[in-house]
């Protein structure tokens, strides 16, 4: 299928897909502010997201044989100019970001119409497009400082998208402010880290850095740069214990924003971590120790602590948010193996997690649309009042737990086998134990929805609108389909892991 798309793409698209993927959302965000109608903005956003998705498919097609696409912006060869560099790892994340950008854009209109002041619609959609630009830019660029710029573009857009939730619940404001403070500290740490690397190598191009770091005369500056970059990105990706901003931000943001962010924002930060650790920094003892002794404990702590916290939440959205932090823990555990299977498992986990969290939050958005509250007791009896919505929710919940024949099972299975292969049976035990916790916290919700009487039995039968239901079921079916036949995401993840780990010595680069 991908071959047909790739072959159908016109020459200009094949040549410039990388630049168009980032530039089109940005310019359309600006054009969009001139539109007065929210519905029109929605159409524009869908078109733009679809175009970006096509671009990322074309890129995926171009890199599928392990090739690397390089695009010199402004025509200046790196390291003097800024460069895009797309290998399978980038392509996978671009696919994730733009794909989710498209799905979220399609389902956005009903929830936005209900939750956001009509006068703000087009500006809101502009902010969304800017966010999309930023996330795609992070996933595509090969320049460390440019990565910071795009990280901040996406973050600033995210802060305001979260804060807009204040119309429904004022707690969105402090949540967004905390997110802003933590996120900005994270970004500044990242800049400090890049500064050290620049001092040690004299370049900002990541391939060039990778070439120069081993011969650098300032190994301590490189180490400090590494640690600042990891901490800074750790704040952005909600690595335990730096995750304190996440639960509130997810819980009080507008529904549509939560759908999009849960599937993309932290994932892109995780991409940046993988990129720096496996590609920019030499695979030596210090880094291997960092993997094993920092990521593994942090990942396990996140899995255990946040799964417990998820059990004790009364708000369903907060339950899911804590579960997200816990799932980041699984991904870090996979990463900490520092092997190709480990990273592939981690990436598969990430991909599937985006599918199920997207579906879960989308179903909740449908619930919020008609039944307002997302407290645990508001869920009671929803299985009868909105069977289609809640069935999809249940499928995604089963997938999150890791029941066989769902995507979650595939990813947990891959992670388990990677961990066992590495000789960490205790880690496998913890994975199973925390999955049991997931049974508790997701089971509670599903049980309330299907086996309890509604709080208010007079409530009529109310499904989510079709614009929401269609993408929701698309994701739910994807969850099942991947559970049965996971060859596509596994292929993506393995190619990406290979690109990350096996890239070896980056090509030498000369001046222009």
């Amino acid at each position, binding site marked *: 299928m991908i071959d047909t798309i790739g072959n159908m793409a016109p020459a*200009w698209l094949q040549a*410039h897909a990388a*630049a*168009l993927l980032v*530039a089109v959302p*940005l*310019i359309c*965000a*600006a*054009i969009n*502010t*001139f539109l007065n109608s929210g519905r029109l903005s929605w159409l524009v956003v869908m078109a733009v997201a679809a175009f970006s998705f096509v671009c990322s498919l074309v890129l995926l097609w171009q890199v599928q044989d392990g090739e690397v696409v390089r695009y*010199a*912006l*402004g*025509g*200046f060869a790196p*390291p*003097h*100019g*800024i460069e895009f560099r797309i290998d399978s790892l980038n392509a996978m994340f671009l696919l994730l970001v733009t794909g989710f950008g498209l799905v979220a854009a399609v389902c956005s209109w009903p929830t936005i119409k209900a939750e956001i*002041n009509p*006068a703000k619609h087009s*500006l809101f959609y*502009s*902010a969304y497009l*800017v966010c999309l*630009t*930023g996330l795609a830019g992070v996933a595509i660029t090969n*320049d460390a*400082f*440019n990565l910071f*710029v795009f990280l*901040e*573009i996406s973050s*600033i*857009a995210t*802060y*305001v998208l979260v*804060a*807009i939730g204040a119309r429904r619940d004022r707690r969105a404001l402090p949540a967004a402010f905390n997110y802003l403070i933590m996120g900005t500290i994270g970004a500044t740490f990242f800049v*400090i880290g890049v500064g*050290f690397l620049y*001092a*040690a*190598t*004299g*370049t900002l191009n990541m391939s060039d850095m990778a070439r*120069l770091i081993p011969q*650098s*005369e*300032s*190994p*301590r*500056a490189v*180490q*400090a740069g590494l640690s*600042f970059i990891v901490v800074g990105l750790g704040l952005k990706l909600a690595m335990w214990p730096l995750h304190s901003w996440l639960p509130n931000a997810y819980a009080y943001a507008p529904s549509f924003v939560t759908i999009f962010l849960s599937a993309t924002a932290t994932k892109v930060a995780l991409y940046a971590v993988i990129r720096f650790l496996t590609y920019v920094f030499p695979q030596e003892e210090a880094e291997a120790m960092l993997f094993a002794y920092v990521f593994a404990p942090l990942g396990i702590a996140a899995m255990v602590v946040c799964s417990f916290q998820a059990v004790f939440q009364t708000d369903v959205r907060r339950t899911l948010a804590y579960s997200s932090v816990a799932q980041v823990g699984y991904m870090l555990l996979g990463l900490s193996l520092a092997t190709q299977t480990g990273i592939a498992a981690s990436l598969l986990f990430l991909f599937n997690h985006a599918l199920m969290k997207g579906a879960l939050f989308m179903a909740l958005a449908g619930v919020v649309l008609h039944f307002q509250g997302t407290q645990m007791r508001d869920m009671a009896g929803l299985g009868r009042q909105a069977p289609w919505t809640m069935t999809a929710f249940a499928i995604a919940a089963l997938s999150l737990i890791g029941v066989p024949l769902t995507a979650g099972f595939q990813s947990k299975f891959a992670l388990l086998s990677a961990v066992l292969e590495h000789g960490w049976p205790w880690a496998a035990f913890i994975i199973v134990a925390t999955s049991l916790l997931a049974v508790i916290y997701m089971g509670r919700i599903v049980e309330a929805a299907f086996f309890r009487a509604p709080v208010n039995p007079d409530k009529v039968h109310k499904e989510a609108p079709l614009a929401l239901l269609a993408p929701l079921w698309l994701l739910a079916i994807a969850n099942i389909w991947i559970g049965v036949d996971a060859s596509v995401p596994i292929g993506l993840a393995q190619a990406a892991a290979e690109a990350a780990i096996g890239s070896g010595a980056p090509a030498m680069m000369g*001046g*222009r």
Partner: protein
Amino acid sequence: MSDPVAIEIAVFNVILLAMLFVVGAAVARLRSLFAIVMLTGAYSLLSAMWFVTLDAVDVAFTEAAVGAGVSTVLMLGAMLLTSRTAKADRRWARIGPLAVVLVTGSVLIYATTDMPAFGDPFSPANSYVGADYLVMTAADIDIPNIVTAVLSSYRGFDTLGETGVVFMAGIAVALLLGFGERSLSANRARGETAPVRTETKADKSDHHVVLRVVSRILIPVIGIYALYVHFHGELSAGGGFQAGVIISVAVVLYSLVFGIAAALDAVPVAFARGLAAFGVILYAGVGFYALTQGYNFLDYDAILSHGADAAGHHGDTNTHGQHIGIILIELGVLFAVAGSITTIYYAFAGRAPEIRDEDW
């Protein structure tokens, strides 16, 4: 270190760093928000001076305009809408932050122990890409100000991102403060004229005549200066960003002296927002134009290149096209910055405070 110039710079360094320390410590200790805001402005101004001693004139210009100017105005605006003093902190609450800071600081100091010496011309940072720009600019772009050349040409995509950030900030603040019954600009758009502030003594007798006369003279001069900064950016410090800030400062001055209502009549909110968006469109549009000519995104060589050259465009450089490209994208930056900062200012200044002046 025996060079007299080096010693002179070292002395400046030490004095300015000491002043920065004093200001920083004062901000940490004070509780009056007004003093904190003013001292933060002073901190920015001192760093701007320090940038000048380290030859970063463009950065100094921007820091002075943004850090000491716009940021201070915005912080004052926010302070007027919120409160004037910070609560005293609890003593035990200092331990955690102190520990974090000490750990971070020691990691940083550890890292500096094997870094190249301060001012070393042969350090990796100063001898590789950075030095290449100095040499390459003459042939590729042919303008004297290397910072402008790198900013808008070699790393022009970063600057597009920066323009996007400014535009986003404008949208963000407008989304948060520009709507609702408290927002003057939104009310005016609906045709309501809600009084924002009650009449003060100043409105009855003409106490502001001096201010009015002087600002009438100054505002056009500020505008001309902004244009100078913009178009002279290729030759000396300055450029679209600084010029945009200066233009929006002119609007701020106008609204402070003649009232926000008059400013909204002169430069409507919709115009400011549109200007910001237009800036981004102009900048990205230059990039798309290059695509249509078969060049890479943001390659200004595409401009004014003759069709015949297009086949081998990676060989010759087209400094003429680079010049025009730089002027266009700097104009884009100027529009985006002027529009966004004006929008942000309107959002703060047009917000009705819920606390009256006397309640402070």
